[in-house]
């Protein structure tokens, strides 16, 4: 509160409370020169890390006695004990499996089931066990990339808390008894007319659909209910009303010159993020001749997409439909760009919406609004207006009309983006299920890998109803809120142990095959259902046979394949995807004007708007047990291990709350309390909260993390299940500490050198126009600090070196800050989880971090994302100071780390200007959650190519030296030279935007060498002359105005002071 009061002070006498000059800032404390923050900058370590032991309460054992005991113990230990590092004898295979070659990986294609996108994956296995999940390069949607949840999914397989045996009434039982009891109950229910309810997620598998249809034939009272927390129902329903079909087209964003994203986080958490990120970044490539696209974001929440936009307008979400009406009025009504201008059914709807008045009412930058209008006019047919999945149907219909009127439907692909094998259940249908359960009309309910007790709105009262069902069964991998109230809890296969097929889009099928035999006594959920439908002796191939039989009888004949079915089947499994000639069922015909005219419109209210967001961490809560995802910083806020209510500066001031305070949010009869995070750029009276947190039964890692925002979901939401504009928000007066990594390791501030942060150029950017006029603008504008290099003379002479030298380039134009690279690095390099408390002490272990720098004002900031990792400096300041030479430089330019030499002085980390070194203060695997990471079978998850580090050892990015070594081995075997482009680091492989390039910088023809010499290339902290080998491409904003950032401001100030000095000298 005091901080907020001081911010309002009109008196300019105190420098402390004035915002810094425009430049880069990471948080409000930095922006407003908080003395407490300045103090923390001087400290290498956070206060929590420096807590001294409480000496007064220590034991009074004398020093003499202590040493005597220690000496005796050491003597016994040395004499008696065996080698503590001895883990036993390693015995090689005596019957080696045919497909395994020791030391070499195998790869299998499959499909990820983390969300409804069903991306193709390629799973790397070593000695029969999966260790890494990457995208399948042959999959037409994700093309070799996978999101954070997909990357981290390997941990789900080895989660020690996975259920291992079937349970009946919380006691372990066996499958035979389960099947006997369940089939009896199913038969009885069907015979007595009682409903058999199967609650599932979206059905994406044609074979599963067939199985469910057959199940319904066997048990005529069976009904299938499906739900999905993050669904596109509003958009699909809007499309159906607009065009009469339910198939959405794929949007060809790679052909769009202008994209207007209305509360659409297509670069973050909205549907199809991988494909849209790839398409978007294709037109952000400084190495290609493509013109840059221009992205406008109009949003209430602060999203990845908004932070990457060239122009961003903050507008409360329930006013977005009005904004679309204003655009329609301007473009169709006034400029008459479309024949719809003649249709009074259309024009009367938006005739009263004036864009200037709207901009004034919501304090929008009129200049930006004019740019949007002008660009939509100029680029008709080459622009697209996107609506986010939280907007209601009416807004999507309006957006469809806008795109239609501007001819932007040329960017609709012929492919259908979604294939609806079975529509999701409506809220009325879910309600009727709950009523039926509560009134005893349901004999058996089967939760088919779903968790409705947690996911559904509390208004359903699902938990109370399910307790009244005589037999409730939950098929699940892990304990969850629904399994806690079910009679039978049946363990199912992980996605890497299961068979399936997927039809998500026109033109191809994706296949899922098991990479590993089941680790426990689990069964495939489809096989369980099949066994109940046709009781017979169970075997592990039951569903595989059913699947292949379905393909042979139903799908294969439609393929007109030349090969016999067996070969075809093996080929399909090999590729993971099979293409086919398929005519999409897209809508033809005209836009249904009546739908636009008649649908009730969303109107902005005066209350708070609540947005319930997806996230790239826990999804709808199903990944809450995955520690890597919990510890992954949110791309925008950098908060870990929690969710929160993100709120604007102004709204927080009005409520009298500050970050780490709490607010009560009430929507109708539903109420919940959340911790507060003041987020720059949020629209006033708009609050954004992530779903998937606040679980009460998610194991040691996921239970009790965050607050359950599902409590705010309404059964019959007037707008959208994830958007409410009738919320009452009050201060709850509590305290809740949120942990954010955004202030860790700032390298841009040094009070010893006044304003050095403006001239350090950690982020360099310009505009596309500036670059076109003068491609060398960056080199000319750079400040050259007159500082002596840190190492004088150089440690070693690199001139004349003719071998290969590794380097990396990161294109900041393409990086969206999604975090896939961070997760991939964690998986590849066996990075441990440290837990929330240790992240608070700045001890997170991730080798790669994404720094997010704001610039601009707290109300309307822009952001830059910069992946920061070990720069492998030629004159590395860390190498000189190691007393035991544990960190040295290799011949090929790597800054190496010898873990078994390191004694943990941490001098190297102290000296690192980029703060990229990570120290193992503890044995994290032992410390976090009672040794969770040591519990069986977590050790199977480790990548055997990378050392698992223990306590007391420094670690950092190695440029994936294990992959470099693999290339060297291949080169030796094949008697050729090392080819730099054959090595792809884990982060490079994972980046969906292709922002990271790696290779041999001495190969002048290579892409990496071209990045190094590109006119937009620069190094971070160049002036200290450590010669880093990571080159960043300066970010170009595609804006009309010249850019004003701190470094340019100070350039002009410096120029003025130099001119003044020259005049005085004269």
């Amino acid at each position, binding site marked *: 509160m005091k901080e907020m009061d001081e911010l309002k002070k009109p008196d300019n006498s105190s420098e402390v409370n004035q915002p810094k000059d425009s430049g880069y800032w990471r948080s409000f404390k930095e922006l407003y020169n908080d003395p407490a923050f300045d103090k923390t900058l001087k400290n290498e370590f956070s206060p929590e890390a420096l807590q001294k032991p409480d000496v007064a309460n220590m034991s009074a054992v004398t020093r003499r006695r202590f040493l005597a005991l220690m000496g005796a113990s050491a003597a016994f230990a040395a*004499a*008696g004990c065996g080698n503590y590092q001895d*883990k036993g004898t390693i015995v090689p295979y005596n019957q080696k499996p045919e497909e395994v070659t020791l030391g070499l990986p195998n790869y299998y294609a499959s499909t990820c089931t983390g969300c409804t996108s069903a991306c193709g994956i390629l799973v790397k296995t070593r000695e029969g066990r999966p260790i890494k999940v990457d995208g399948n390069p042959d999959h037409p949607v994700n093309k070799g990339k996978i999101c954070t949840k997909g990357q981290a999914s390997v941990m789900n397989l080895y989660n020690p808390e996975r259920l291992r045996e079937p349970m009946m009434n919380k006691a372990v039982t066996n499958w035979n008894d389960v099947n006997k009891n369940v089939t009896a109950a199913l038969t009885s229910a069907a015979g007595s007319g009682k409903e058999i309810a199967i609650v599932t997620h979206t059905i994406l598998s044609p074979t599963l659909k067939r199985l469910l249809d057959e199940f319904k034939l066997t048990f005529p009272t069976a009904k299938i209910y499906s739900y999905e927390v993050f669904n596109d129902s509003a958009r699909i329903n809007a499309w159906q009303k607009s065009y009469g079909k339910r198939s959405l087209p794929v949007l060809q964003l790679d052909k769009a010159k202008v994209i207007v994203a209305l509360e659409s986080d297509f670069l973050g958490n909205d549907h199809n993020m991988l494909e849209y990120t790839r398409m978007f970044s294709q037109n952000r490539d400084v190495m290609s001749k493509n013109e840059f696209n221009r992205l406008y974001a109009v949003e209430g929440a602060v999203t990845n997409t908004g932070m990457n936009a060239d122009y961003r307008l903050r507008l409360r979400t329930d006013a977005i439909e009005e904004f679309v009406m204003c655009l329609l009025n301007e473009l169709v009504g006034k400029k008459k760009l479309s024949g719809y201008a003649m249709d009074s059914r259309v024009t009367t709807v938006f005739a009263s919406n004036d864009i200037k008045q709207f901009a004034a009412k919501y304090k929008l930058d009129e200049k930006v609004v004019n740019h949007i209008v002008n660009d939509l006019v100029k680029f008709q047919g080459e622009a697209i207006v996107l609506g986010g999945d939280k907007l209601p149907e009416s807004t999507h219909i309006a957006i469809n009309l806008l795109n239609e009127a501007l001819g932007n439907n040329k960017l609709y692909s012929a492919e259908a983006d979604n294939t609806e094998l079975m529509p999701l259940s409506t809220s009325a249908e879910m309600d009727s299920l709950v009523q039926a359960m509560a009134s005893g009309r349901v004999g058996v309910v089967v939760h088919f890998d779903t968790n409705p007790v947690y996911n559904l709105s509390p208004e359903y009262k699902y938990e109370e109803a399910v307790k009244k069902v005589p037999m409730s069964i939950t098929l699940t991998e892990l304990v969850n809120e629904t399994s806690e109230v079910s009679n039978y809890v049946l363990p199912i296969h992980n996605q890497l142990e299961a068979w399936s097929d997927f039809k998500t889009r026109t033109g191809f099928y994706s296949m899922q095959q098991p990479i590993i035999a089941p680790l426990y006594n689990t069964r495939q959920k489809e096989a369980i259902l099949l066994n109940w439908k046709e009781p017979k002796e169970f075997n592990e191939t039951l569903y595989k046979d059913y699947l292949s039989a379905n393909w042979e009888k139903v799908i294969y004949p439609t393929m007109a394949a*030349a090969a016999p079915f067996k070969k075809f089947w093996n080929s399909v499994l090999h590729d993971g995807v099979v293409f086919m000639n398929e005519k999409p069922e897209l809508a033809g015909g005209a836009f249904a004007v009546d739908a636009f005219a008649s649908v009730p419109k969303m109107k902005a209210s005066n209350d708070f708007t609540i947005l319930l967001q997806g996230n790239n961490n826990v999804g709808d809560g199903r990944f809450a047990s995955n520690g890597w995802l919990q510890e992954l910083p949110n791309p925008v806020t950098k908060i870990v291990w929690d969710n929160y209510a993100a709120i604007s500066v102004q709204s927080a001031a009005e409520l009298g709350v500050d970050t780490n305070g709490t607010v009560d949010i009430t929507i109708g009869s539903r109420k919940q309390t959340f911790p507060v995070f003041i987020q720059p750029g949020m629209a006033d009276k708009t609050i954004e909260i992530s779903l998937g947190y606040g679980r009460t039964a998610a194991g040691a890692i996921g239970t009790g993390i965050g607050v359950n925002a599902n409590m705010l979901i309404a059964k019959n939401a007037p707008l959208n299940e994830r958007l409410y504009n009738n919320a009452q928000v009050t201060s709850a007066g509590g305290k809740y500490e949120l942990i954010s990594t955004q202030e860790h390791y700032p390298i841009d501030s040094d009070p010893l050198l006044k304003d050095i942060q403006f001239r350090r150029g950690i982020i360099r950017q310009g505009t596309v126009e500036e670059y076109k006029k003068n491609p060398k603008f960056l080199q000319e504008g750079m400040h050259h600090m007159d500082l002596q290099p840190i190492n004088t003379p150089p440690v070693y002479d690199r001139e004349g070196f003719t071998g290969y030298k590794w380097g990396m380039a990161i294109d900041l134009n393409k990086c969206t800050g999604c975090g896939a690279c961070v997760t991939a690095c964690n998986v590849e390099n066996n990075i441990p989880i440290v837990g929330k408390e240790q992240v608070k002490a700045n001890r997170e272990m991730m080798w790669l971090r994404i720094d997010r720098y704001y610039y601009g004002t707290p109300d309307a900031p822009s952001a830059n994302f910069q992946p920061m990792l070990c720069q492998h400096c030629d004159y590395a300041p860390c190498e000189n100071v190691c007393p035991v030479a544990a960190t040295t430089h290799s011949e090929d330019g790597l800054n190496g780390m010898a873990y078994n030499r390191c004694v943990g002085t941490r001098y190297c980390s102290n000296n690192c200007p980029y703060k990229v070194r990570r120290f193992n203060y503890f044995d994290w695997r032992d410390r976090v959650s009672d040794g969770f990471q040591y519990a069986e079978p977590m050790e199977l998850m480790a990548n055997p190519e990378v050392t698992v580090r223990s306590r007391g050892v420094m670690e950092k990015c190695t440029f994936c030296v294990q992959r470099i070594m693999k290339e060297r081995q291949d080169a030796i075997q094949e008697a050729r030279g090392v080819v730099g482009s054959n090595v792809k680091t884990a982060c490079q492989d994972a980046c969906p935007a292709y922002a990271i390039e790696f290779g041999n910088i001495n190969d002048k023809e290579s892409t990496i060498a071209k990045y190094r010499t590109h006119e937009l290339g620069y190094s971070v902290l160049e002036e200290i002359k450590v010669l880093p080998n990571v080159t960043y491409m300066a970010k170009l904003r595609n804006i009309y105005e010249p850019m004003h950032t701190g470094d340019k401001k100070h350039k002009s100030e410096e120029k003025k002071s130099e001119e003044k000095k020259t005049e005085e000298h004269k």
Partner: protein
Amino acid sequence: MNSNNSGNNNSVKIKRRNFFVYLGAGAVAAAAITKLPFKLFGQKLKAEASVKVKANPYAVKRDMNMSSKGPKGQVRG
């Protein structure tokens, strides 16, 4: 509070000579015990893991050298 000069020092100060005698005797005794065939102090071998890893025999391994972009519905030989 730790102190070299604790007021309540009831411990009997052992003579240096005796200390080393006892230490040596203890070391010899420990060494002798470890030579017994009972492996009292030896590191026990880790019990056989309860989770067995076995590749799925029906999974089709990806040939990383082979391009998989064949014609639609067709199979390479």
